C-alpha cells in the first residue's frame, strides 16, 4: 500500500494561539480519512497547512514522496491535490461551467480550454449541476455552491481530494446522495480526507478517522474505535452526562 500523504509533527501558530500541535499521520492511497473535532479544533487549519494556504512552522508534509511543506497552494494543485472550502468560495461573476473549467485547466492535468469544457460538463453532470452550467456561480444557493466546490475540485482529476464539510446544511436525503457521490469518487481511485460533522455519514464512509481537539490529535483509528473512545466522546460528541444533568435539573 503506497502512502500518498504523510504528515510528521506538523505545528502551526496564529499569534498566541497554537492552532495545530504536532499532527502526524500517514494516508495510504485510495482511502477515505475522516477528520472530526469540535468547531475551532483546527480541522480547517490542518487543511490549510496541507495544501499550502498557511504553511506550518514546524513539521514536514510529504505528498507522493515529495516534500511540499513550504510549497504554495498552486504547487499543490499542480501536483494533484484539490480541495473544497467550508465557507464556499465561488468565482461569482463567472458561470458555473467556467468555475469548473478553472479547476480542469489549472489542476495537475493542465487541460486546454476545449477539453476543460468537456470535463466540466461531465463533472457537472456527476454532481448534478448540469442544468445550471450557464448560470453565474453567484446566483446559486448555498447547497449548490457546495456542489460547485466539489465539481471544481473533481475537474482537476486530483490524486488527493480534501473535502471540508460538504455535507453541512444538506437534508438527510441529500446527505445520502452526497455520500454516494463521495464513495463513487473513491471508486475512481481518488484518495479523500473529509472534515465532517454529520457523524453517521462520516462513520459510514471513512476507512479511518482522525480526531482533533484544540489542534491536538486526540485519537486516530477505525470508526468503531473512535466511537468508543472516551476522550472523543467527551471532547466532541458532547458529554452525555452533562446533557443528562441539565435535563434533570428541570
Amino acid at each position, binding site marked *: 500500500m503506497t502512502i500518498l500523504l504523510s504528515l510528521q509533527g506538523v505545528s502551526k501558530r496564529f499569534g498566541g494561539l497554537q492552532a495545530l500541535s504536532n499532527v502526524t499521520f500517514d494516508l495510504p492511497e485510495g482511502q477515505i480519512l475522516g477528520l472530526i473535532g469540535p468547531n475551532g479544533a483546527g480541522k480547517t487549519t490542518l487543511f490549510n497547512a496541507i495544501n499550502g494556504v498557511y504553511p506550518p512552522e514546524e513539521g514536514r508534509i510529504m505528498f507522493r514522496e515529495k516534500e511540499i511543506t513550504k510549497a504554495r497552494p498552486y504547487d499543490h494543485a499542480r501536483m494533484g491535490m484539490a480541495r473544497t472550502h467550508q465557507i464556499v468560495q465561488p468565482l461569482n461573476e463567472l458561470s458555473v461551467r467556467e468555475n469548473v473549467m478553472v479547476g480542469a485547466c489549472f489542476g495537475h492535468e493542465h487541460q486546454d480550454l476545449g477539453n476543460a469544457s468537456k470535463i466540466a460538463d461531465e463533472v457537472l453532470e456527476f454532481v448534478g449541476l448540469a442544468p445550471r452550467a450557464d448560470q453565474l456561480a453567484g446566483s446559486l444557493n448555498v447547497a449548490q455552491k457546495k456542489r460547485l466546490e466539489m465539481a471544481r475540485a473533481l475537474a482537476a482529476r486530483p490524486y488527493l481530494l480534501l473535502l471540508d464539510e460538504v455535507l453541512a446544511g444538506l437534508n438527510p436525503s441529500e446527505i445520502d446522495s452526497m455520500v454516494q457521490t463521495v464513495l463513487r469518487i473513491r471508486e475512481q481511485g481518488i484518495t479523500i480526507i473529509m472534515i465532517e460533522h454529520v457523524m*453517521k455519514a462520516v*462513520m459510514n464512509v471513512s476507512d479511518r478517522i482522525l480526531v482533533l481537539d484544540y489542534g491536538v490529535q486526540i485519537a486516530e483509528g477505525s470508526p468503531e474505535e473512535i466511537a468508543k473512545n472516551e476522550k472523543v466522546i467527551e471532547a466532541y460528541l*458532547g458529554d452525555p452526562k452533562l446533557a443528562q444533568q441539565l435535563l434533570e435539573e428541570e
Partner: protein
Amino acid sequence: MAILEIKEVTSGYGDVQILWGSTLSLEKGKLTCLVGGNGVGKTTLLRTVMGLLRPWSGTILFEGRDVSKLPAYAKADMGLVLVPEGRQLFTDMSVYENLEMGATNQRARPNFAKNIERVYEMFPRLKERGGQKAGTLSGGEQQMLAVARGIMADPTVLIIDELSLGLAPVLVLQLFESLKLLREEGMTLLLVEQNVQLALAISDYGFVLAEGKTELEGPARQLIKNKHVRAAYLGL
C-alpha cells in the same frame, strides 16, 4: 405571550435568496433554541431579525410592534439584542470599552453601573482584564465578553448565535448556567446552537430550520426525542 414573532420572513444577499419563509415566536421569559445544519440560514435569519439585512417579505413583531423595517441600532434601543456569531468583539478596544459599547442604547445607559456589577459577578475574569485589548483574550474569555456585552445592553430579548462554538465543555457548561440565571431574572432568550443536544437539553422550546424554512417546532424535550431530529442532527 409571544414577545418576538417572526412570520414567513424571506431574505437573502443581493440576488441570492437564503430564507424561504421562516417562522418563529418567542414566549416571554422562556429559553428557546433554534437549530439546524450549517448554511440553512440561521445566521441570515438573525441578521434579518436584527435589521442588518432587510426582509424581502414577511413581518417581524417585537412586543406586538412591527419592527421589520427598523435599523439594527433602533432595535437595540428597544431591548432586542444579539450576541453575534464569531463574537464580533471590538478587538482594538479594551474589555471595559467593549462593555461600555454594549451599554450604548438608550435603555441601558442609566443602568450601566448596575449591569456592569452583574456582569463582573457573572464573569470575574472580565473584571481582572478590564484594561486589556479584547483581541488579546483567549477564545473562552472572548465568548464571555461577547455574552457580557450583550447583557450590558439590558435586553428584554437576548439572542445568542453559536454560544458553544469552539469552547471547551466545561466553559460551555458555565455559560449555559449563566443563561439559566438570566432566564430566571425574567430575560427572554433565543439560543442558536450547533450543539443540538446540549441546546435542546436546556431549552424550553425549539425550532428546527432547514433550507431557509422552519421545518419543525415543539417543546425541546419532544424535539430531542423526535426521530428526524435525532437522525439528522444528533447522528444517532
